[in-house]
């Protein structure tokens, strides 16, 4: 089963992408496509992003680059040169997908726009994933992950209660999720175009915008404004809301936190179950008092239940213990974990989530996070580690396009590859 091809097997994707699009290429590659990453001679700038293996900076040691470029092959090509353009056009003539994140207008200025590429390959799907799309007053604006989280609305929704941290700024969650969000939508658009192509035989052009993708990704914030005129307030560790809501994040005995959803759920039945949970540890306090079978009494005592009883219960135990004890009793609660805590998670082990990826240069394999979903017929899997700089130049330029090794040397000497 694990050797079966992935769902996107048989597709050739050319990826001319930087930090904005590399995750989209990874998604397609891990799903089985043959993704050929095209880097400038010397390597793509993302190879200079840390952290690095053993903290030794080197373009072949960037863990960020490693992660975002699994399952790809790699070639170098300078499309600013005439030879480079010609080779790119040759590759595009047999590709299924071109994914590019160049500044709007750049590829057309090289004669590599969709209309030109399509002349030789009507089945080509080309996706331009750019900060703001191909049109509009912000089209040529510069961006970054932080900038997108600001303009997209993520920051306006995330931060702290005034009571917790007066004058706190809006907070942009980390991890590069503006890029992830743009890539998720780009991958969806590409997949839809490919499904359509299985019926129509025709490719098409996709203009995808990271700003729009981020602006779409704040759940009900837009609907709250459109339908009720509300602008939501930031609340520590929980949902934005028009008014202040009961807290959901509690400090555990080990100094980490538990996300315990209570607000709006405190019914007599819920309080009985809560009493059972707390009683397992002898911490139910007065929660078994029959008075709590009256909704009005519960509402009146919300602060006592939440801020005294639940808070004390969680403060008395490690976060992991609260998480599992609560979930086993049907509470939708979770430990707020740092990423390193995931390596010990038994459920992930059961699902075979962690993957060993061979890094022959290191003489060992490295543990990578695996797939979001388990496919029964065509596995989502990491096919190989990220490519070295120009690792597949000979394989692709000579093996596929028919160049001689001599010609390859001349291209290298002239800065084309």
């Amino acid at each position, binding site marked *: 089963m694990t050797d079966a091809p992935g769902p996107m097997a048989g597709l050739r994707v050319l990826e001319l992408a930087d930090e904005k699009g590399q995750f989209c290429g990874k998604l397609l590659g891990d799903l089985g496509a043959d993704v050929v990453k095209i880097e400038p001679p010397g390597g793509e700038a993302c190879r200079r992003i840390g952290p690095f293996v053993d903290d030794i900076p080197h373009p072949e040691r960037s863990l960020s680059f490693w992660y975002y470029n699994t399952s790809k092959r790699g070639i170098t090509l300078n499309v600013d040169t005439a030879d480079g353009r010609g080779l790119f056009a040759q590759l595009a003539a047999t590709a299924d997908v071109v994914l590019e994140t160049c500044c709007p207008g750049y590829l057309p200025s090289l004669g590599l726009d969709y209309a030109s590429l399509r002349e030789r390959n009507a089945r080509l799907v080309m996706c331009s994933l750019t900060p703001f799309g191909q049109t509009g007053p912000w089209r040529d604006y510069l961006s970054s992950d932080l900038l997108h989280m600001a303009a997209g609305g993520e920051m306006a929704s*995330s931060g702290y209660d005034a009571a917790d941290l007066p004058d706190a700024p809006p907070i942009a969650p980390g991890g590069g999720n503006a890029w992830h969000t743009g890539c998720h939508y780009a991958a969806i658009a590409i997949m839809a175009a490919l499904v359509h192509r299985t*019926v129509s035989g025709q490719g098409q052009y996709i203009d995808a915008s990271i700003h729009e993708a981020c602006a779409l990704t704040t759940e009900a914030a837009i609907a709250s404004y459109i339908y009720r005129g509300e602008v939501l307030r930031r609340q520590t560790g929980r949902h934005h809301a028009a008014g202040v809501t009961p807290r959901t994040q509690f400090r555990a005995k080990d100094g980490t936190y538990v*996300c315990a959803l209570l607000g709006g759920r405190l019914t007599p039945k819920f309080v009985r179950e809560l009493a059972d949970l707390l009683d397992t540890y002898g911490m139910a306090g007065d929660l078994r008092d029959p008075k709590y079978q009256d909704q009005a009494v519960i509402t009146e005592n919300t602060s006592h239940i939440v801020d005294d009883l639940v808070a004390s219960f969680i403060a008395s135990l490690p976060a992991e213990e609260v998480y599992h004890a609560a979930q086993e009793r049907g509470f939708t609660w979770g430990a707020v974990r740092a990423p390193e805590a995931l390596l010990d998670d038994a459920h992930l082990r059961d699902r075979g989530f962690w993957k060993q990826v061979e890094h022959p240069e290191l003489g060992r394999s490295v543990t990578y996070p695996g797939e979001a979903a388990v496919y029964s017929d065509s596995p989502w899997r990491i096919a190989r580690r990220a490519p070295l700089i120009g690792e597949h130049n000979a394989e692709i330029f000579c093996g596929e396009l028919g160049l001689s090794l001599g010609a390859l040397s001349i291209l290298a000497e002239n800065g084309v590859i």
Partner: protein
Amino acid sequence: MTQPRALDNIRVVDFSWVRAGPWATRWLGAFGAEVIKIEWPESERGRLPSTTTPQHLESNLNTSGNFNDTNVNKKSLSLNVRSARGLEIVKRLIAISDIVIENFSSRVLRNWGLGYEELCRIKPDIVYVSMSGYGHTGRNHHYTTFGPVAQAVSGLTHLSGLPDQPPAGWGWSYMDDTGGLYGVMCALSGLYHRNMTGRGQHIDLSQMVASIPLNGPALLDVTVNGRGSQRAGFPPGNRAHWPGTPLLNNYRGPTVAPHNAYRTHPGGYNDWCVIVCHSDDEWQRLVQVMGTPAWAAAEKFATVAGRLEHQEEMDAQIEAWTITEDKYSLTERCQAAGIRALPVQSAEDRVEHDPQLRERQMYLPLEHPALGCHKVQNAPFRLSQTPASNHRSSPLIGEHTRDIIEGLLGYSHEELRSGFADGTFWPTKRARFPYQEEMLQ
């Protein structure tokens, strides 16, 4: 001639509820699939409780604004799947469908008698996407999630906040939005695979597990370098690095300064802009735009190392400048000079003030029978041949029951009436909406 759509002739049986599943099927509908939402008012979650019903309307099953935005492009069949007759009907529907999608906890569909093996007997090449909290396998498969819990357990919440403070986390269910997008990817890649091979499959998506790969570089820092994220200066708020803590990459991009949010005029709740300089050149351009103030000429700010070390002083000086100007005019001035700057935007800002989203028609009005005419969020991509679009407002509950039962499945009108009488299509003791009375005429 109507424009072709990417998913023309694809039918989706949509059991999903709350947010993550409906957000997935919204996009299948936008691509032109016929999405049939199976609903039951007694166990409905997504329409109610509603915090987005306009103030002038009664809150009921048909007046949630957020439900409308999340469920455009779908039809609704009200059906009690937990009755023998309802189960038989839904099986007939599955037999003529391409995709079954749901986001229940792990054993629900199987308990209804609709596990993957049974789905295959009904429709051998069905693409079945389950979007549960923890997946259908693994010892914690019975655990349940909401977005915030998936975010907490997966490590995403930990990425957000200021050092030495509790996590700020994500102010919404990011993993309902994003979990929905993984649901779309699973459905589309499964459909592509089916079209190429003739084989369907079960795709077992987990909301919590899908969150973890969003922490990739942080996880490799653990598995390769043995370095965790419970450390001084992490997470560094909006900065790339927190001054006075070890110089380490924080998994957002290059470690540079300035890289922060700054207050702008007139100092309201969302009057902030962010400014980032990726190079000394960009910094020098910022200095010029600020009017070449004397403080900025100091040697300590000339290099990225110096700027990282002296961020507190530098950020205070930059904010003394930004507070004098509106966030949109600051953005324009900075960007015109080649400096990375954008405003923090609230929902109101995005809908009313963002010139780019306006030009790109991100919010277009759509008529809804109970809510009236309101803007709906558009797609963030433009497909040249098969554009995604919002062509239908969200369905009223059970709005298409007659169309589907009689028109699509070929039952008689008498059978529709008897199904309403015996509680198959609507609870017998529950008042019917006027449009339901009409479909019984």
